[in-house]
């Protein structure tokens, strides 16, 4: 038997390194017909904000070569509704339910995190400082080092459980931001969020998204994500959770070899709702084949 479990620190222990990416997995229940979601290492639920958000107008997505653009814009019920109506339904899943927390001011982040801190069965939050789809902020926090540090510090003060900070790829040097949030008290970082992109319908000459630009995800971004995970894992000492285009066992292993302690799968779930389970099984098979006893033996094991 291979030990797939991963300890991300500050009481966040995953039974295996495969989590699902925020905004692509609803609250987990959407996939319950397809797989036993309790088998997952963790589920990061929808981006959650202090107050309810309607998100951006339709159209919100466009298909691109081996990927898609989205401009959902953090549509969600708000943290109070989440606590009242959704939390009771998901709190007894036998997996780690993390909440992805967004905001447009530091205070909003803090207030949302504080409320979630009180939920016994939420072992951590993923602080989303990298959403490219809302005007008021999100990504702005993740693309400037001082503001990334400021929001992380402020949330760290009120949030005592596992604090994972989700980094934006839309930056010149992601390691700089990673080091900043490490210093500010993050327990781990996750990356990458979507890359800002755009698509145009040449017949109508309109942008394909209501917001003109949106976030690119899917296999097309994998090489960029993998590079950033490798750079970041080599730059900081807290665990790195890697994502961006993972859609096969082999993709997941690339990220782990590059230094990711765990991974998240996003867009690939839309095409194969069973992909997470296939990846968990495939990682186990790979470790057996390579004669490894635990996942840790290949984490960051890239030969260079």
């Amino acid at each position, binding site marked *: 038997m291979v030990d797939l479990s991963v300890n991300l620190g500050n009481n966040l222990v995953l039974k295996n390194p495969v989590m699902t990416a925020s*905004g*692509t*997995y*609803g609250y987990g229940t*959407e*996939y319950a*017909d*397809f797989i036993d979601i309790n088998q997952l290492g963790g589920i990061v639920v*929808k981006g959650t904000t202090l107050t309810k958000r*309607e*998100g951006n*107008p*339709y*159209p*919100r*997505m*466009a*298909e*691109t*070569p*081996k*990927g*898609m653009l*989205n401009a*959902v814009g953090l*549509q969600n019920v708000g943290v109070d509704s989440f606590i009242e109506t959704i939390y009771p339904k998901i709190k007894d899943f036998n997996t780690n339910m993390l909440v992805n927390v967004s905001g447009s001011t530091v205070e909003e982040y803090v207030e949302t995190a504080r409320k979630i801190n009180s939920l016994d069965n939420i072992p951590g939050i993923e602080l989303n400082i990298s959403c490219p789809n809302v005007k008021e902020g999100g990504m702005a926090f993740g693309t400037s080092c001082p503001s990334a540090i400021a929001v992380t510090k402020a949330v760290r003060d009120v949030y005592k459980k596992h604090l994972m900070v989700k980094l934006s790829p839309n930056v010149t040097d992601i390691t700089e931001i990673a080091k900043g949030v490490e210093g500010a008290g993050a327990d781990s970082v996750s990356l990458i969020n979507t890359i800002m992109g755009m698509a145009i319908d040449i017949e109508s000459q309109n942008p394909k998204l209501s917001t003109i630009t949106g976030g690119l995800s*899917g296999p097309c971004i994998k090489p960029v994500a993998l590079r950033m995970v490798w750079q970041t894992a080599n730059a900081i000492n807290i665990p790195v959770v890697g994502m961006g285009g993972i859609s096969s066992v082999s993709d997941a292993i690339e990220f782990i070899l590059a230094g990711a302690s765990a991974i998240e799968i996003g*867009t690939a*779930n*839309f*095409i194969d*709702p*069973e992909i997470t389970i296939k990846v968990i099984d495939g990682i186990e098979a790979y470790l057996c084949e390579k004669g490894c006893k635990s996942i840790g033996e290949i984490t960051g094991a890239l030969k260079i």
Partner: protein
Amino acid sequence: MKYIHDFTVTDNIRQNHEFVVLTLKCDSTIPEIVPGQFAEVRVDNASNTFLRRPLSIHDVNYNNNSLKLLIQEVGEGTKKLSNLNKGDSINMVYPLGKGFTKPLNDQKSLLVGGGCGVAPLLFLGRYLVKNNITPRFLIGAKSSKDLIRLDEYRDLGEVMITTEDGSEGVKGFIIHHPVLKTEKPDFNIIYTCGPDGMMRVLSKYAAKHNIDCQVSLENNMACGFGACLCCVTPTQQGHKCTCIDGPVFDSKYLKW
């Protein structure tokens, strides 16, 4: 309950230059499907598609676990699917979404379709017949050559037609058909699927005459089962997902 099933193509019958009907057989038992529900179909062996493609269930035969899709070729995805051959395999996530709801027993229905929007109306028609309601169809097209499978619909009930060039039925758009011109409509529920413009006109018509109108939307989708929030439409209660709260909506509920 939603399933991911592999189907085998048992038949592919070309209807005209842009439409085919695929018959698909499943090894597993197919679940109960409500008319208006759809499948997210994986497109294999295609260089330029990425996501699955949403397609309505056109017809179902529970006895032999088979169903039909009516496909209009518009881009690479639908072209690939419509070129599948007998014996080819096709993977579907289904049944998805909320379908049409049954009319009250004394309601008289009008089923209005245009383009690939006629797809769910055949299955709906059968369902109404089974529930002892005779469907009437109003089908709009550019030209007579775009009218397909009329016999199937005629087997179920009266079929009225409009064509833009007047090559068959009434010349003009659907809204120009006499059945929609009477002072008081002789039906009290409209089921419709087709181009946005057509459905908006019908929804206004229904509002004016104070009758029910169920519209089936074709918003772009990424997942098809409520996980991504890409497919929303504005409703009286804010953004709702076309894939799980629809694709069929009561037109009054939509913010049109």
